[in-house]
C-alpha cells in the first residue's frame, strides 16, 4: 500500500522516472500545445469567432436606439412582432427581454450585417436553431457582432440562459432569404 505510505526517499522530486511516463508526458505536452495553437489559428483563418466589440450600455437607451434603427426597415408584422429587413451591411438590433425576442430579423444569404445584441433585464441566451450558434446576452452590455448567414431557411431563436419562469416561452424567429 505504498501510495498510502511516505515515499522511500524523502526528496521525492529526485526519484527516477521510467520511460513510459516520460514518453507519455512528451506526447501529452505536444497535444496540449496543439490545443493551444488552434484558438489563435482560428482567429486568423477561421470564419467563426466571437466579436471583441462590446459597449457598456443603459438598457433604456439601448431599447430606444434599437426601435429607432430597426423601425426604418420594418416590412411586415407576424403575430404582432415586426419583421425587419435591413439592407446588407447595415446595423441591426436585437433586444432580449423577459420573455421575448424583438424583432424578427429577415436577412439575406451571403450578406453581412452588424448585429447589436443586449438584454433589458436579466441574462438571456441567444441560441439560433438549428444552426446551433449560442451567445450570452448580458444586460448593460451591448455586443456588436458581424454575422454572415450561409444557409437559407427559417430559424428559431431560443433562449438558453435561464431567465425566470417564462424562460421556455422565449422563442423568436429569424429568416434567411436568397
Amino acid at each position, binding site marked *: 500500500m505504498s501510495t498510502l505510505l511516505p*515515499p522511500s526517499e524523502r526528496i521525492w*522530486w529526485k526519484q527516477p522516472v521510467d520511460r513510459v511516463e516520460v514518453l507519455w508526458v512528451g506526447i501529452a505536452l505536444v497535444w496540449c500545445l496543439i490545443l493551444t495553437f*488552434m484558438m489563435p489559428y482560428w482567429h486568423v483563418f477561421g470564419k467563426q469567432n466571437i466579436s471583441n466589440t462590446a459597449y457598456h450600455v443603459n438598457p433604456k437607451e439601448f431599447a430606444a436606439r434599437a426601435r429607432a434603427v430597426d423601425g426604418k426597415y420594418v416590412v411586415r408584422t407576424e403575430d404582432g412582432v415586426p419583421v425587419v429587413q435591413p439592407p446588407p451591411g447595415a446595423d441591426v438590433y436585437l433586444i432580449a427581454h423577459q420573455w421575448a425576442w424583438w424583432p424578427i430579423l429577415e436577412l439575406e444569404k451571403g450578406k453581412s450585417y452588424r448585429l447589436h445584441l443586449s438584454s433589458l433585464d436579466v441574462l438571456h441566451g441567444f441560441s439560433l436553431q438549428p444552426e446551433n450558434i449560442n*451567445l450570452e446576452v448580458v444586460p448593460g452590455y451591448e455586443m456588436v457582432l458581424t454575422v454572415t448567414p450561409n444557409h437559407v431557411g427559417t430559424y428559431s431563436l431560443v433562449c438558453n440562459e435561464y431567465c425566470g419562469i417564462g424562460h421556455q416561452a422565449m422563442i423568436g424567429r429569424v429568416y434567411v432569404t436568397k
Partner: protein
Amino acid sequence: MGIDRRFRICPDTGLALHRPAERLIKANAVAAVVCLLVGGILAIGVALTRWPAVHLLPVTSFYTALTAHGLDMLIFWIIFFEIAVLYFASSTLLRCRLATPRLAWLGFALMVIGAVLTNLVILQGRSSVMMTSYVPLRAEPGFYLGLILFAVGALIGCFIFLGTLVIARYEKTYDGSIPLVVFGALTACIIAIFTIASGAIVLIPTFLWSIGLVSHFDPLMYRVIWWGMGHSSQQINVATQIAIWYAIAAIVFGARPMSERVSRTAFLLYILFLQLASAHHLLVDPGISSSWKVFNTSYFMYLAVLASMIHGLTVPGSIELAQRRKGLTKGLFEWLRKAPWGNPVFSSMFISLVGFGFLGGITGVMMGTEQLNINVHNTLYVPGHFHATVVVGTTLAFMGLTYFLVPVLFRREIIFKGLARWQPYIYGLGMSAVSLFMMGAGTLGVPRRDWDITGAGLPFAPHWPGAAYLMLGLLGISAIVAVLGGAAFIVITVGSILFGKRLETGETTTAPSRLERAAPVAAALEGYGGGGTLVTPGTFVLALVFLLTFVVYYFISWKYLGTVWGLH
C-alpha cells in the same frame, strides 16, 4: 478538558482511527449521503420532465427541483464527502490526532445549518434561480445566507486538515514526506481555500443586495467571480477523486505510484495553473477580450489538462505494475482481465477513471475551446459533460471509497453483496448513458434548464429534429437506470451501517505506531519490460486509444463549427 488521544486500530486494515476524527468522518459522510438521496429524488423529477412524452412536473416545480438538484448534488453531497476525505487523509492515513475536533464540529454544524436553510428556502419556491443564481435574478436572502454558512463551515474543515498536517509533522507520526494520497488531498484543500474565497467575494455582496443594502451588482462581474468559485471547485473534485483513485489502487492491489515525481508534479500543476478557469463559462460573453479568454480557458497552454492526462496514465499504470509483479504478465491486458471486477471498490474506481477521461475530459476540452464553445454554450451538452465528470467521475469514485470505508469506520459488513457487485455498473453505465444522451441532444441544439422545448401554443414554436426528441426519451430511460443504481448504493450503505454483521472493533491505544516509509522503489522499476520494452505496455496502449479518440473528436468539432454562419 484534555486532548482525546485515543486511537482505535482497525483489525482488518491496520489503520489507526483517532476516535474524535472517526466520529467526524462518519458524520460528514452520512450527511453527504443524505444530500445524495435528496438530490437523487429530485433528479427523477427533473429528468422525467425533460422527457417530452412524460413531462412530469409543472413548470414552477421543475425549476425549483432543478435549482435544488444542482445544489444538493454539486455542492452539498460533494463537499460533505470531501470534508470526510480530508479528515480521513490527514488524521487516519497519517496516524495523527485530528486538530481541534470541537471546532470541526462547529464547522459541521454550520454546514448542516447552511444546507438545510438553503433547501428550505428553495422549496418555498421563490428562489428558483438555479445554483448559479446569476444576478439580477433574485432569490430570497436565506438562499445566499445558507450557502455562505455552508462555505464557512467547509473553510473550517480545510483549516483543520492543514492543522492536522502540522501536528503530524510536529509530533512525528510519520517518517519522511507525506504519502501521495495525502499530497493529493492537500492539493484539493489548497484549491478549496482559494475557491471559497472567491465564493465569499461573490456571495456576500449578493446577499447584501438581496436584502437591499447594495443597490447594483454588475451581471458580468458576477459571472466572472461566481465561476472563479464554480469552476475552480471542480478542480477540488478532480484532485480529491484522483487521490481516491491512487488510494484504491493501493488498497485493492497494493499498488505503488509509477514514480512519486511525476504524480506529485501533476498535482502541483493543478495548483499552479488553475487560474481563471471561470473563463470556460464566459467564452461567448460580451465585453471580454479574446486574448483573455484564450489564455485563461487553456489554463495557460492546457497544463492542467496535461496533469489530468498524466494521472490518466499513472493511475492504471500503477495497477498494471502491481499486477505484473504478482505474475499476471501475459500479453498486454492479463493484468486488467484478472482484476477483481466483482469488487465494487475497484469497479467503481475503474469506471470512474474511464468515464471521467473519455466522456468528461474530452468533451470538457472541446467545450472549453474558445470558438468551439459557440456550438455548445448553454445547451444540454453542458450538463451532459459535467454528469460525466462530476457524477461518473467524482461521485462514483466516492462510492468506491465508501464501500471500503463502511466496514472500516462502522465495523459492519457490507450487506447485499450480490447487489453491491452490480451497483457500480448500473450506476456508472446508466449515468454514462445519461451524459451521452444529454450531449447528443445538446449537439442538436436542445437548451439546458428548459421546462418544455416544444413551444406548444406559442406563435414561433421551434422545429426540433426527431432525433432531439429521441435523445430526450433515451435520457429519461437511462436516468431511471441511473437512479436505480443510486438507490441501490444508498440501500446498501445505509443498510450495512444499520443491519450489517458486526465486526470486531479492535483495540484502543493512545500511541499508535509511526507510519514508516515505503520500501525503496528502484528494484521494482527494472523488473518488467527490461531491455527495450515498456514497463506498462497495456496502460500505454490504453492511453494511445484515449489520445486517438480525443484527436478525432476534437477535429470533428472544428469541422462542424466551420459549417455554421460566419461570425466576427
